[in-house]
């Protein structure tokens, strides 16, 4: 069984700060991490591989050369092979151009059974790359998966959406996006870490290696463009009540009545 897991290296948004003067993002010193939900996707793939009684889990990432470390970490967790799509031509990609590059890479890997993505990446929070990849490959998808099982050559997926759980059955090959509720990602072992650097195959592919037309990737292949970025404007300052709490509470209730809120 061949399972492909696209993973993304992202800045840890817990540590992203805004420069109060310029209003821009300070990314200096912000650690890069593997997108949290992608770890759950790798875990899901590893469990499924065992369930299937063998196979291969290949992690793929499109990103700058330093994304290698994110892929190595996933090898240490237990993935079998890693491919880094790295080429200046990929830069500036929106979700469509990202999915396009990933789709071409997947086609290079031959016959696969399943693709597992994270639900969304914490830098952009779009949750679009998975479904757009599935569309390029013309395969069925199940997003928001909290459980995944093999059943007689098909997969059974529980999708959690809007206060419901949908139980779906999909033929393979298919694409699933994984929620963090699905599992608890394993911690890499020391042996795993050594293997990740010494033994396991790691390749870097450029645009020509995946045979993708240059106008479909990177900035050129991106229909959307960022017009501007800014820090969210604060809501206006209202009334501040200090001192006696009883007094404050009475003033509040009166204000609410005057505004017709209660």
């Amino acid at each position, binding site marked *: 069984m061949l399972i492909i897991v696209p993973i993304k290296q992202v*800045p840890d*948004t*817990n540590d992203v700060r805004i420069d109060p003067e310029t209003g821009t*993002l300070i990314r200096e010193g912000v650690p890069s991490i593997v997108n949290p939900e992608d770890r759950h996707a790798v875990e899901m793939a590893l469990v499924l591989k065992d369930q299937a009684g063998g196979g291969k889990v290949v992690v793929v990432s499109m990103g700058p050369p330093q994304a290698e470390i994110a892929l190595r970490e996933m090898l240490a967790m237990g993935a079998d092979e890693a491919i880094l799509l790295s080429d200046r031509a990929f830069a500036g990609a929106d*979700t*469509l151009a990202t999915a396009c590059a990933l789709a071409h890479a997947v086609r290079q890997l031959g016959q696969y059974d399943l693709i597992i993505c994270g639900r969304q990446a914490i*830098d*952009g*929070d*779009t*949750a*679009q790359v998975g*479904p*757009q990849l*599935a*569309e390029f490959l013309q395969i*069925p*998808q*199940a*997003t*928001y998966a909290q459980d995944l099982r093999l059943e007689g050559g098909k997969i*059974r997926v529980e999708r959690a*959406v*809007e*206060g*419901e*759980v*949908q*139980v*779906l059955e999909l033929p393979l090959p298919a694409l699933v996006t994984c929620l963090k509720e699905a599992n608890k990602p394993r911690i890499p072992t020391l042996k795993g870490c050594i293997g990740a650097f010494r033994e396991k195959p790691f390749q870097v592919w450029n645009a020509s290696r995946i045979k993708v037309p240059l*106008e479909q990737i990177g*900035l*050129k292949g991106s*229909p*959307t*463009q*960022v*017009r*501007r*970025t*800014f820090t*969210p404007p604060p*809501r206006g*300052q*209202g*009334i*501040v*009540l*200090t001192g006696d*709490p*009883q007094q404050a*509470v*009475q*003033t*509040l209730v009166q204000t*609410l*009545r005057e*505004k017709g*809120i*209660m």
Partner: protein
Amino acid sequence: MAISIDKNLCVGCGACLKVCPYDAIDLIDRKAILNDSCVHCGACVDSCKFKAILSQAGEGPRKDLSEYAGVAVFAETRGQGLAKVATELLGCGRALADTRKVGLTAFLLGHRIQGLAKDLIAHGADRVVVVDDPRLAPFRTAPFARALTSVIQQQKPEIVLIGASGIGRDLAPRVANRLKTGLTADCTGLAIEEGSGLLLQTRPAFGGNVMATIVCPHHRPQMSTVRPGVMKPLPRDDHRQGTITEAKVTIKETDLRTVVREVVRLAGKKVDLSEATVIVSGGRGVGGAKGFEGIRDLAEALGGQVGASRAAVESGWIEHDHQVGQTGKSVSPRLYIACGISGAIQHLAGIAGADFVVAVNRDAQAPIMKAADVAIVGDLHQVVPLLAAEIRRARKENAA
């Protein structure tokens, strides 16, 4: 993309100067010249009747964008009715359509849903296009993607809005890919850019630390998913007039490969914060699960629901479905009371749609205090019970 102007083709008509959002084109010796302000956004390309403005995207023949007109929304259904986000999309779609001076269409897809068409008109649609097919119930990605794509291809709207709900975020990326157009996820602000007429799609990124405004200049339709709970629906007006038409689409056998085995509604005390009109939320300052009793009591006094910050949820004091914010729910109540919540940007991102915000916090400098219409500086363990009592007293007085 890189923009350039072919001097030989330029006749100096100046049409491009008017559409440039950046004042980046000068007319020198009756030729349009790009100046340093040009960001290569491409807004000018289609304004040139003489094809003198070139963009080096090299995407083959450019789509004729002028074929596309009007605003359309995807009318998501929930059970027998409309999802709340559908009416929110109509509210915001109406404003966009009026600015563009075009019509507003709702695409209603499902099985035995025709009855909802008049509700869509009452909430602002000029036209409803219905696709009724038994294979469109319950929701499945592939047949819905097929049906929505083909309705968009038939109607050619310039803007398509879809709710950023579980269904919308599953469906929209596939449709946008099939149409080979752009899609902006989870927008919290939409507007029409003066001059270019482009849709300005604003959304939070980096965990709500920054906002980004995204455009889709050369592809149509311009598509966005829109965060539920942010846009305001129009009040229902049954006198509104509109037309209802049926569309035919061809769903293929291969679209039906996924089987829905069962749908389990998560039973019991399901909270629906996105629909609540009053929400009382507690954060880390509440101090523990027991502290939430006071929050619950205040919510009860106001007839509202209980919300929470991520810190409170992650401490295990309350379940995840109460979480408000970036990774929780976006809410749009008339009254939001935040108790012991500092007001991190990710929390504030979820309450942008609230009409009136009250904060109770010991720390006058907490960010929430600057975001509140009324900020009470004090210990919530004192203030919250007092407030509940005062509200009950005022209620009684009102009733008398």
